[in-house]
């Protein structure tokens, strides 16, 4: 690979940098909802990927609807789709908490089984309603193509969009969890449900809304991913392991840890990938994770409290 100019090389470097950042934002967006549900509430939600898929399908439905009924609104529908995905996934999450999760707070590991069952059911529902084939919504034109700061650098607009969205959602989550009194209730409840009730927190409501919020954020992630990949009934299962990895590796209860972990994984993967095959890059990235967890057994940003 000798014949390229210095300028080309810098362009490639810039673009490769963006590949890492873009993977980072994807991972982080996937993980944010789980950081709340798993990191804060301790619920091992194996159906988290399906909630993402739910958001993606919502976006797809809305795009079909807009296209047939209000074609002139196509350029704008995506914003509504994000909100709708949040709401739909959030509402389903709310119901899930009510029907299932609230009975299991004393047995956190059992949430793994119940939500695994839930994920099977949701997958089958997607298949029944939308068929086995993958779908992808028609995207507004402004989301396609790329931004060219110079004539040899192409920064994909969908990647920038996801990055922007991730930033917004991250700040919102940070504010909600660490700066609002609601967040204080959430954190108290998840640390000691009984005692939180005894200081006046309506823990049932907090639980339900927290779970719904986490699922809603998964829905947003799902909506965002329709700009990158297609959605099928089993799409969710593709994401779930990575998502858990990001959250756990960061130190389950730390939002900052989740961010740092998504960043580390994304950069390791994308840098390695440029030099070796993607499967070996993945293996090396994962091995690095394991070694780092050996050094920091409770994740990158463990919140250490004496026991």
């Amino acid at each position: 690979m000798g014949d390229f100019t210095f300028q080309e090389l810098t362009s490639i470097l810039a673009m490769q940098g963006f590949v890492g950042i873009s993977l980072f934002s994807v991972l982080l967006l996937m993980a944010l909802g789980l950081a709340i549900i798993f990191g804060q509430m301790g619920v091992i939600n194996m159906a988290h990927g399906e909630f993402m898929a739910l958001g993606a399908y919502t976006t797809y439905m809305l795009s079909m609807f807009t296209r047939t009924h209000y074609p002139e609104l196509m350029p704008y529908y995506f914003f509504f789709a994000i909100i709708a995905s949040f709401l739909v996934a959030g509402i389903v999450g709310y119901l899930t908490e009510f029907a299932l999760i609230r009975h299991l707070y004393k047995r956190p590991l059992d949430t793994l089984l119940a939500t695994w069952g839930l994920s099977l059911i949701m997958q089958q529902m997607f298949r029944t309603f939308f068929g086995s084939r993958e779908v992808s919504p028609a995207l507004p034109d402004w989301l396609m193509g790329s931004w060219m700061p110079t004539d040899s650098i192409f920064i994909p607009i969908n990647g920038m969009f996801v990055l922007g969205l991730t930033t917004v959602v991250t700040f919102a989550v940070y504010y909600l969890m660490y700066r609002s009194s609601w967040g204080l209730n959430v954190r108290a409840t998840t640390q000691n449900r009984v005692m939180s009730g005894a200081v006046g927190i309506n823990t049932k409501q907090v639980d339900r809304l927290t779970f719904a919020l986490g699922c809603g954020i998964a829905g947003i992630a799902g909506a965002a991913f329709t700009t990158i990949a297609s959605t099928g009934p089993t799409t969710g299962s593709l994401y779930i392991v990575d998502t858990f990895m990001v959250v756990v590796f960061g130190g389950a209860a730390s939002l900052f840890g989740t961010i740092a972990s998504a960043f580390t994984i994304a950069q390791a993967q994308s840098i390695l990938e440029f030099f070796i095959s993607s499967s070996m890059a993945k293996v090396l990235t994962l091995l690095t994770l394991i070694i780092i967890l050996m050094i920091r057994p409770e994740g990158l940003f463990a919140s250490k409290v004496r026991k």
Partner: protein
Amino acid sequence: TEFPTAEVNTTGLAVTDDTVTVGILHSLTGTMAISETGAQEAERLAIKQINESGGILGRQIRVIREDGASDWPTFAEKARKLLINDKVAAVFGCWTSASRKAVLPVFEQHNGILYYPTFYEGLEQSKNVIYTGQEATQQILAGLDWVAEEKGAKTYFLIGSDYIWPRTSMKIARIHIEQVLGGRVVGEEYKPLGDTQFGSIINRIRLRKPDVIFAAVVGGSNVAWFRQLNAAGINSDNQTLLTLSVTEDEVLGIGGENLEGFYSVMKYFQSLDNPNNKAFVEAFKAEYGEDSVIGDVTQAAYLGPWLWKAAVEKAGSFDIDKIVEVSRTGEIELDTAPEGYVRLHPNHHLWSYTRIGKWNRDGQATVVYESPELIEPNPFPEGYQ
């Protein structure tokens, strides 16, 4: 009757005086359901049509459907069930090579017959399998010859999903490019199945500036792959891309706008203009809805029941050995195949045309090249192993 059961079924298959039972074995659930749905629908359509036209040796075909669930062990288990428990006279099914490899010993041990519809890597020829899709050389060599000739391609970038079919296909492609076409392979990359991050590979493509991207990315990854290509400014205006694995099914997810102007090499496109295909498309849409699309594998799957019918009728028997025997005569043929005309080669594969389609925005392809004659299947190509 004309064909007494005792005569047409000497090996205890599930054949009665008026029915014959067959199995359909595809993934209805799991990641592969996406691809296998169409195949499974086409097989059912063919069986329905055969039944409507009087069945086979005077018997109606009864179908047992099993779900392979995208899981190879399950495929093997279900194949065993179909053969041992249900004693089906034939099985139509499988999509991935992995699932075929998993069921192959079962079919060989219990002497069943499998009609396998997917384009695949070759290097296999089982007595108990009829391959109705193309093997690697049929698809690849013609395709590469065409880009070399038409586009004057010299440098090639190979990319595929990480499993046996793309890897074998690329191996053949590389040999052909380097030794026959005198070109150069400037990159060869594989992505795990289902992966959606192609940014790094795209950057590498940009570095190497190949004349042709030659792709065998499978399933859901395709959407990410083409969307990201497009967003990176690589499109048919500035890049030739030929893929082995995009059919109308995948286009549905990818979106025509992301694919416009790129090429697929296949034996079948829905847009093929011939009376057989017109009738087939019409019947398919009547059965499964106006919006349904038909891809290469779907069509190949449709051939399965018809080829089986032809063989059974020629043999005058449902016995597997007799079917295999007549299949090996090289005389089983279908004038009514949607792809035009097919004939079964003694090596269990089909003679077929190879076509190159250029994708349009509406998700259909325009055939820009068709091999002048049927291409002989050659699962063990000399010099390409």
